[in-house]
């Protein structure tokens, strides 16, 4: 899937204007070689030819030449201006927004990208777009300055708090391309990114319809945890993140900030994803945002499966990894089965909330 081959010398060219940027790049390289090689040859030639033959010699004095000075001021100036004109053309191509583009809303926050499509789909650290379609990102940030950077598209723009900035592109080649944050934004800056998936229209329509991949629940959960939802940026395995490490947590007793102790089971995880402020692990700040509306019940099940798999002994005692449905909440919400598509987010939230409060009430 990855188009960035192992040849580490030139990036993929996957947007309608990438070739223009590359052409400008090669033009400036040509200018550099013209002057660079010229100067290097002259320096080498003179350095060889006029090396010292007599110690402390007094070579002939040459004061300078106005003709030469004017020549080597004017020629570089003219060439610099051609670069300017070419560069300005490319600059406007990249930064003048087309009127007929499909808009995607982007919110940056430490340290994840949140995308929302016009049709309602939300994504985190992933952006699915159709090929040969103009896309315009309407971007802002919840905290510090970030920067959307897609090297294969040759474009980027800062995302600035308190205002909207814009970026547009038209992908020309289906594939999976790096998405980076290019403006330093703190601790997990280098983890703030993911992938842009450029899809054929048919695949894109499928994706919109919610067809998912053939990953096992644990794999899907791991993908959500580490990439798509960015959970791992705070819940680091080392325990040094802003949230507790979840390694080996499942099935253990967890002390809470209110002094109580709770057994970590499926419903506790479910609640912590949708209503994180309810029960805070001891020693941590209540800073986790809710993922209500961003994850489906299916995805929560996958996350639970993954978190279980982080503690193999507990996973065995509570059931098989492939059993994705949470046990406890399932009993209470039997009348409203969790939704299975990721389009009707509103209806999935309700049973989830009920589930969480019921589960808490039972304890």
């Amino acid at each position: 899937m990855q188009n960035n081959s192992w040849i580490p010398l030139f990036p993929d060219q996957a947007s309608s204007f990438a070739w223009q940027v590359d052409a400008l790049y090669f033009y400036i390289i040509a200018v550099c070689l013209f002057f660079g090689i010229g100067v290097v040859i002259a320096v080498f030639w003179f350095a060889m030819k006029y090396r010292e033959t007599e110690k402390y010699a007094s070579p002939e004095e040459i004061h300078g030449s106005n003709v030469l000075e004017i020549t080597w001021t004017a020629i570089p100036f003219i060439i610099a201006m051609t670069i300017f004109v070419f560069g300005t053309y490319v600059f406007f191509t990249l930064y003048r927004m087309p009127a007929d583009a499909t808009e995607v809303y982007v919110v940056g926050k430490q340290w994840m990208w949140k995308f929302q499509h016009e049709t309602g789909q939300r994504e985190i650290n992933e952006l699915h777009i159709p090929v040969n379609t103009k896309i315009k990102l309407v971007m802002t940030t919840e905290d510090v300055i970030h920067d959307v950077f897609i090297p294969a598209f040759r474009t980027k723009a800062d995302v600035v708090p308190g205002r909207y900035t814009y970026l547009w592109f038209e992908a020309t080649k289906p594939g999976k391309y790096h998405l980076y944050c290019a403006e330093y934004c703190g601790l997990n800056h280098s983890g703030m990114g993911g992938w842009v998936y450029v899809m054929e229209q048919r695949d894109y329509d499928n994706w919109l319809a919610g067809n998912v991949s053939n990953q096992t629940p644990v794999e899907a959960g791991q993908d959500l945890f580490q990439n798509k939802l960015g959970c791992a940026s705070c819940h680091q395995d080392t325990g040094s993140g802003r949230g507790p490490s979840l390694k080996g947590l499942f099935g253990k007793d967890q002390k809470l900030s209110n002094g109580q102790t709770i057994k970590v089971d499926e419903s506790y995880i479910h609640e912590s994803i949708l209503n994180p402020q309810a029960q805070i692990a001891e020693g941590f700040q209540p800073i986790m945002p809710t993922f209500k509306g961003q994850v489906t019940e299916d995805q929560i099940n996958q996350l639970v499966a993954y978190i279980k798999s982080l503690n193999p002994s507990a996973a065995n005692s509570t059931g098989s990894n492939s059993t994705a449905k949470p046990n406890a909440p399932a009993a209470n919400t039997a009348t409203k089965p969790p939704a299975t598509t990721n389009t009707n987010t509103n209806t999935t939230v309700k049973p989830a909330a009920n589930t969480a409060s019921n589960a808490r009430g039972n304890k």
Partner: protein
Amino acid sequence: MMETVAVTRDTSKKPELHYLNNGYSVASWLLTKDHKRIAMLYLMSVSFFFMLGGIFAALIRLELMTPNSDLLEAGTYNRVFTAHGVIMVFLFLIPAIPATLGNFFVPLMIGAKDLAFPRINLLSWYLYMAGGLIAAYALMNGGVDTGWTFYVPYSTTFSNGWVLVTGLGAFVIGFSSILTGLNFIVTIHTMRAPGMTWFRLPLFIWSHYATSLIMILGTPVVAITILLLALERVAKIGIFDPAIGGDPILFQHLFWFYSHPAVYIMVLPSMGIISELIANFSRKRIFGYEFVAFSSIAIAVIGFLVWGHHLFVSGQSVYAALVFSILTLVVAIPSAVKTFNWTATLYKGSISYDTPMLYAFSFLGLFLIGGLTGLFLGTAGMDIHLSDTYFIIAHFHYVMVGSTVIGYLGGLHYWWSKMTGKQYSEFWGKISAMLVFVGFNLTFFPQFILGYLGMPRRYASYAEELQVLNIFSTAGAGVLAVGMIMPVIYLTMSLINGKDAGDNPWHLPGLEWRTSSPPPTENFYEPPVVTWEAYDFSEDNGLEPKKEVAKETV
């Protein structure tokens, strides 16, 4: 021309007293008003901070050998590159050449006894040390992770309070820089020896004059910016933070209004050194003296009007971007003019390949790459892809290390005998100059390619397919480190067991070579009178006949 000989002294007997043995007490150093001793204090201080910054550089390169952040975790890595940047920029690159070599040689090269304000000169060293120690303490003890650019709102709202302490350090150092610039301008205007007209000044002096202009005009702006940053953080005045009505882009404008010209504070003095080296080791007057001199002034002036090229992708107006783009391409022209004139100076010269000249050749190669790659970044349409990637890192290291550090090392070797009276090992000097050149290119050239491939800067972990080039870069850093450590060893050794270098080992005409090595506290035995043009290698330039000198030193 006999009246000019008064400048030189009777070489048959060595004077008992020079600036180094004129008092050994601690107070005679710490309370000295002698520009040469203050320069030596600066030399030791900037060398210390350079090594400290170098250790952080080594940590960065070691971490980046592997794609994952394994050697340093992300939080530590962020603090390390911040420390590297702040220390290298504020504590080494900006003061390195003006405060050491400039301090030592500006008075000597214009025939003055000292700088115009010796006490202010000493004060500037104390300010530098105070600011430097505050900043270094905050960086290492508190851990500041904002990057040396301190962008808001990260620095005002989201990082720890040590940012302010670091800012205080930079604020104080700024005043040291302003005082040095002020001192140079007054000295160059008022203390030139009789006969030392403006167009007889060595180009080292012209470049320091241009540098001083930037120091006194630009540095107050960074002081203001730091002050506003502190007010924003402490009193929430609402100037930068959008949450309370401020504008984060305004900070970037203010920051780069100083910090871009600061690049010219770093590079111009180095260009001055290169002009000296190329003229003197080709034994020729510099080609197009006036053009080289005025190109320094042109760089200083136009350099104030290009800061917006750091903001091409930040959301500033596209029309502002175009103005900054065209001005940036224009500021490349005086640098090109300098390069062509240096090259032309070699023509029909009598070129020798001593260590300082190897550094000058090295400079030409590296500055060529550093300067030309600036064309990519000054071109707005090109910069969008390259901004905040390793292309930027490579470019500014070619300019700052490839030009400033190489020029500094070249100057240090060139004048070492004058500063200490001792001769360093020419053999090790040449080896280290070549190692630095090779190591430097191996470290930073791959980063241009990494940048175009899209590796963002300030990343503790990166995509796996980029590892090969990163390994090259780290290997190069190893070679570079060896090349940088060697001069520390052989220059120090020369103080212990180096041979006496003689007053004028290369038989050069500059005023600094017409006094003893090391010079006496008052610089010259009799007030010099200048009757020759700059870089006058003719037989009647007032020096002793070359044949006798050749016999004496060979």
